[in-house]
C-alpha cells in the first residue's frame, strides 16, 4: 500500500513538472471501450449502419472495443432522452435520427425531454434522398395535375414521423390542401395503399421504392431534397416546383431531413473527446475498405463533419419559428 502511495506521489510530481507526455489527441480512445448506442431496433436500418461502421471506428480510434447496444422506443425519443442525461466523458456516443430530435419538440411532442441544439454532433453517417412517389395508375404526373385535383391530396402515413411533417410543410408552401391518413403499420402498408389507390402518394427512400418503381407499381413524383438524383434525372426537386419566396421553411425542413443519421454525444461532451472523435470518425468513414463495403452492401455513406452538422442544426433551430405553427397545425388535423 505504501509502495502504491509512493508511486502515485511520484507520478503526480512528474506530471506537475511536465515530465509525462500529454496524451496525444488521437490516442484519446486507445485501449478504451466506446459505448455505441443505437436508437433503433436490432433489426432496423440504424443498426445495420452502426454494425458496418463500428469496426472501422475501432480501427481508427484504437479503442479496445466498440460496444453496440440498442435503445429503441418512442421513434428514437427514448434514446435521445437517455443520451441527454448521459456522462459527458466521451465514452458514450449514439447513432440517432436527427429529424426526429429536431421535429418532435417543434411539434410539441410530450415525449421529447431535451433540446436538440445542445447535443454534441460528431458526424453525419448517411443521408439517403427521399422521394415522393405516386401510384402507377395515378393521374398525377406533374405538380400542375396536383393543382387541378379539386380535392385534397391523400397521404397515407404511419404516424407523425419526418415524412408526415415534410408533407405538411410542402403542401403549406404549395398552398394546396392535403388529407393526412395516419394509422398505417409501416412502409409496406403505406406503399400498398398508394399502389391500390387508397392514397395518392407517400414518401420513402429511393432504395425502398426502387423495386416498385421498376415494376411500374409506383412512379417517382418529386425529389424531397435540394438536388435531382442520378437514378431519376427527370424528376424535379421540391424547390423547382414551389415559389422561391416561400423556400425558407421548405429549406429548414429539407435540411433537417438531410441530416438523417448522425453520430451524436451528450451535451457538453469533453472537448478533447469531441475533437478526437470528429477527426477519427471522419477518417474511419473515408477508409477505402469501408467505402467498398458500403458499396457492396448498398448502404450508402454520406459523411459530413460534426462542425458543419452543428451549424445546420442551429440554422434549422433559427428557422423553427416559421415551422412550428405548420407542424402543430398538421398534428391538430389528425387529432
Amino acid at each position, binding site marked *: 500500500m505504501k509502495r502504491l502511495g509512493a508511486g502515485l506521489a511520484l507520478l503526480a510530481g512528474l506530471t506537475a513538472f511536465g515530465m509525462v507526455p500529454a496524451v496525444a489527441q488521437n490516442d484519446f480512445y486507445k485501449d478504451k471501450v466506446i459505448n455505441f448506442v443505437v436508437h433503433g431496433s436490432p433489426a432496423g436500418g440504424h443498426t445495420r449502419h452502426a*454494425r458496418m461502421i463500428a469496426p472501422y471506428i475501432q480501427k481508427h480510434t484504437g479503442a479496445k472495443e466498440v460496444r453496440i447496444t440498442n435503445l429503441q422506443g418512442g421513434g428514437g425519443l427514448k434514446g435521445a432522452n437517455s443520451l441527454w442525461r448521459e456522462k459527458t466523458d466521451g465514452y458514450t456516443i449514439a447513432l440517432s435520427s436527427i429529424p426526429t430530435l429536431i421535429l418532435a419538440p417543434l411539434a410539441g411532442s410530450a415525449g421529447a425531454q431535451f433540446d436538440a441544439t445542445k447535443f454534441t454532433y460528431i458526424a453525419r453517417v448517411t443521408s439517403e434522398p427521399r422521394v415522393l412517389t405516386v401510384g402507377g395508375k395515378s393521374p398525377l404526373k406533374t405538380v400542375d395535375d396536383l393543382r387541378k385535383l379539386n380535392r385534397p391530396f391523400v397521404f397515407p402515413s404511419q*404516424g407523425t414521423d419526418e415524412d408526415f411533417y415534410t408533407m405538411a410543410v410542402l403542401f403549406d408552401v404549395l398552398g394546396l390542401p392535403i388529407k393526412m391518413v395516419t*394509422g398505417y403499420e409501416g412502409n409496406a402498408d403505406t406503399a400498398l395503399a398508394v399502389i*391500390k389507390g387508397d392514397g395518392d402518394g407517400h414518401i420513402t427512400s429511393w432504395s425502398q421504392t*426502387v*423495386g416498385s418503381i421498376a415494376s411500374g407499381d409506383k412512379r417517382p413524383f418529386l425529389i424531397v431534397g435540394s438536388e435531382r438524383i442520378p437514378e431519376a434525372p427527370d424528376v424535379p426537386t421540391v424547390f423547382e416546383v414551389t415559389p422561391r419566396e416561400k423556400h425558407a421553411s421548405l429549406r429548414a425542413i429539407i435540411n433537417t431531413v438531410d441530416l438523417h443519421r448522425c453520430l451524436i454525444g451528450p451535451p457538453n461532451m469533453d472537448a478533447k473527446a469531441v475533437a478526437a472523435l470528429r477527426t477519427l470518425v471522419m477518417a474511419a468513414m473515408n477508409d477505402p475498405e469501408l467505402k467498398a463495403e458500403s458499396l457492396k452492401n448498398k448502404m450508402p455513406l454520406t459523411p459530413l463533419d460534426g462542425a458543419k452538422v452543428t451549424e445546420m442544426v442551429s440554422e434549422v433551430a433559427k428557422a423553427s419559428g416559421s415551422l412550428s405553427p405548420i407542424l402543430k397545425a398538421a398534428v391538430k388535423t389528425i387529432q
Partner: protein
Amino acid sequence: MIDAIVAGLAALMTPQAMVFMFIGVIYGLVIGILPGLGGVVAMALLLPFTHGFEVAATLALLLGAHIATIWGSSVTGILFNVPGAAKSLTSCFDGYPMTKKGQATRALGASATGALLGGILGAIFLAVSIPLVRPIMLALGPSEYLMMALWGLTIIATFSEGSLMKGLIASVLGILIAFIGMDPVTATPRYTFDILYLMEGISFPVAMIGLFAVAEMMKLYVKGGSIVDRQLTEERSTVWQGVRDAFVHRWLIVRSSLLGVWIGVLPGVGATVGGLAAYAQAVQTSKTPERFGKGAVEGVIAPDATVGANEGGGLMPTLAFGIPGGEGMAILLVAFIGLGIVPGPDMLTKNLDLVFSMVWIIVIANIIVTIIGLGVAPYLARLPALHANLMVPAVLAVCFVGAYATRGQIEDVAMAVAFGILGYLMDKYHYSRANLVIGMVLAIMIERNLHLSLTLYGGDFLLERPVAAAMLAFIIVTTALPFARRWWKRRKLASAGGRA
C-alpha cells in the same frame, strides 16, 4: 416452374447448406423456448455471422432458425403455460390443460405435427397461389383487416364459460391496457401520466410472460408440489397419439394452413392474430366447442398449423411488390442485399429458383424440427413433474431474463411482476386471462383499421367494400351457429321429452 422447384431444392443439397440448416434449427429451438424471444430475435442475432457463405446456406441458417422458434415457443406454452413468443400464445389455451391431464407428450406431438403439416401445406399453397397473390393483396384493405380482427374477438365467448360478464370485464381490461401509450392514429399519449416508459405502451410479450408464466409460478408456489402430480395423474400419452390426432383432424389443418398463408401475405395482420383466428375457426367449426379451453387437441393443432403456414406467406409482400412486410422480412432483406440479391417483383421471374429454395427450406426445416420434437417430447413431458422448489426459481429466472431481453429495459421486469400478480388474482377469481390477452392483441388492430376504413371510405364503408361486408356476414353466421345448434338440440330434447 418445375425447373425452378428442382433447382431450388438442388441448391440446398450442399453439405454447407444442410449443416447450416441443422445449426439454425437447433439454435431456433433454444431461442424459441426462451420466453419473449421469437424468430425475429433469432435471425437478428445470427445476421452478423452470415457474411461470405453460400446464398442457400445463409438462407437455410436464417429461415431454419426462424421456423424452429415456432415449435420451441409452443413447447413451453404447453408444458408450463409460458408462451415462448407472442404468436404461440394459443398453445397455452388447450396445450397446458392437456399437460395437467397427463397428456403432455400427446400435445407436444400434435403441436409438432400440426406445425409440420401447416408448414408443408403452406408452402404448397404458396407455390400454387403465386399468381393470385398480387390481385388478392390489392383487393384487401383496412376494412377487411378490421373484419379479421372482429373474427378473432369472437373467441372471447369460448373463454367466458360460467360468467359472460366476467369474460367481458377481462377483455375490456385488455383493451384498456392496449390503449396505454402513444395512440397510433393521432399520436396522443393515452394513460401515460407523463412517464416516458409508458409512452411506448405495454410490451405484449412482457404482459404475456407476467400473466401466464409468473402467475402460474405464483400459483405453484402457493400450492406446493408440482404442476402435474405423477402419483395422481400419470403421463400415459405418447407422441404417436399426437401425430395421429393431427391426421385425424386433417381438414382442420388444411383450413388452418390456408388461413395462415393468407394472414402471412397481408402486411399488418401478424402471426399472433393469425393464431387467434385459427383458434376461433377451430372452435366454430367443432361439433363440441365446449371442450375448448379444457384440453381439446384441436386447439393445439389449429394455431400451430396456421403459424407454421404463416412463414411462407410472410415472404410474399417482398417478392410480389418489393416492399418488406414485417420485421422478420426486414432482416431477410438485409441478408438478401448482403448476398447481392435485389428483392422485388423480379424475384418471381428471374430468381424463382431462390424463391423455391426458401419454400424448400421451410419444408425441410419443419421436418427436422418435427423429428427432433417427436424424439425429445417424452423427455420434455417429464419436466412438469418437477417439484415447485426446483421449478419456480428456474422458470422465474428465465422469465425475467426474457422480459428484460424483449426491449432491454429493466422496467419491463417490474411490469412482468405486476402482470404476474394481476394474472394470479384473475385466475383465483375466475376472470379469463386469455380474454384479457385477446382484448390486448386485437384492440389496436381494430382501432387502427376502423379509423382507416372510416377516413378512406366514410361511415358506410361496408357498402363500398363488399368483401368486408361478406366477411361480417360470415362472422355473424359462424358466431351464431353454436348458439343456434344448442337451441336446436334443446328444442329437439324438449319435444322428445314432451312426446315421452
